């Protein structure tokens, strides 16, 4: 778990370690409709709420659709690009095609409060926890 970022050089390493350790996590278990599908998703906890960070470089914002229903998020769209005509292609590693992925989160969400932001090829989905799902402190009388 990330606790502090005291040393700026150690910060990235500890983040990478934390991400690696979580790769085998069974937090979502079988609840994702397509684990391992495109695009890859990292899910973080931010206070009470959740934050999904999706790596989606080179997508036109208009080609990206996000739908939310109860605790399910659907990310779909297409990644397209073409080489100009008359060029000789030396190396082709980037992939193109369509994607459609559904992510079910084992936490009740507030669908109206979900926010999506796409910047620098990263899609960030702010997933606020539903008010009814938040833990409550019980005062002892």
């Amino acid at each position, binding site marked *: *778990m*990330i606790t502090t*970022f005291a040393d700026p*050089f150690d*910060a*990235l*390493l500890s*983040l*990478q370690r*934390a*991400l*690696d*350790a*979580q*790769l085998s*996590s069974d*937090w*979502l278990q079988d609840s994702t409709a397509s*684990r*391992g*599908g*495109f*695009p*890859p*998703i*990292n*899910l*973080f*906890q*931010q*206070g009470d709420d959740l*934050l999904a960070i999706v*790596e*989606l*470089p*080179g*997508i*036109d914002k208009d080609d990206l659709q996000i739908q939310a229903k109860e605790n399910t998020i659907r990310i779909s769209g297409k*990644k397209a690009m073409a*080489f*100009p005509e*008359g*060029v*000789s*292609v*030396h*190396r*082709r*590693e*980037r*992939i*193109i*095609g*369509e*994607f*459609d992925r559904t992510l079910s989160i084992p936490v009740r969400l507030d669908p109206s409060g979900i926010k999506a932001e*796409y910047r*620098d*090829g*990263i899609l960030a989905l702010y997933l606020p926890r539903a008010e009814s799902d938040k833990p409550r402190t019980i005062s002892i009388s």
Partner: protein
Amino acid sequence: MTSRQELQVQQKRELETKEETTVPARTFLPTADIFEDEDALHVVLEMPGVEKDNINVSVREGVLNIDGRLDFSKYKDLQPLYTEYNVGNYSRSFRLWSAIDQNKIGAELRDGVLSLTLPKVEEAKPRTIQIK
């Protein structure tokens, strides 16, 4: 069968170099497309999450170096719950075979994709030889 092609996840490849970095964090290779036309060599690299100011492109002794640093302060106070990819800085080098006009290198970053245009020097451009 439909003609729709489902995208597969590309596993990130780690950078392997002879020298080690002084920072013990992992560095990844950005996926790249390279193509060439008569005037220039075009290199397109995917570096999601890297901001414009954190990219360094240089050509030295015929080697093109591209470095992208990730601003990991955005990950502060975030606890990973479920992860499918790792994050890190990006770095990649290519040995160029044709002479590049270094002063005219063009770079554009859009949606995490860096497009480099490396114009060839005049002498390196193909030319038609007239037979007398």
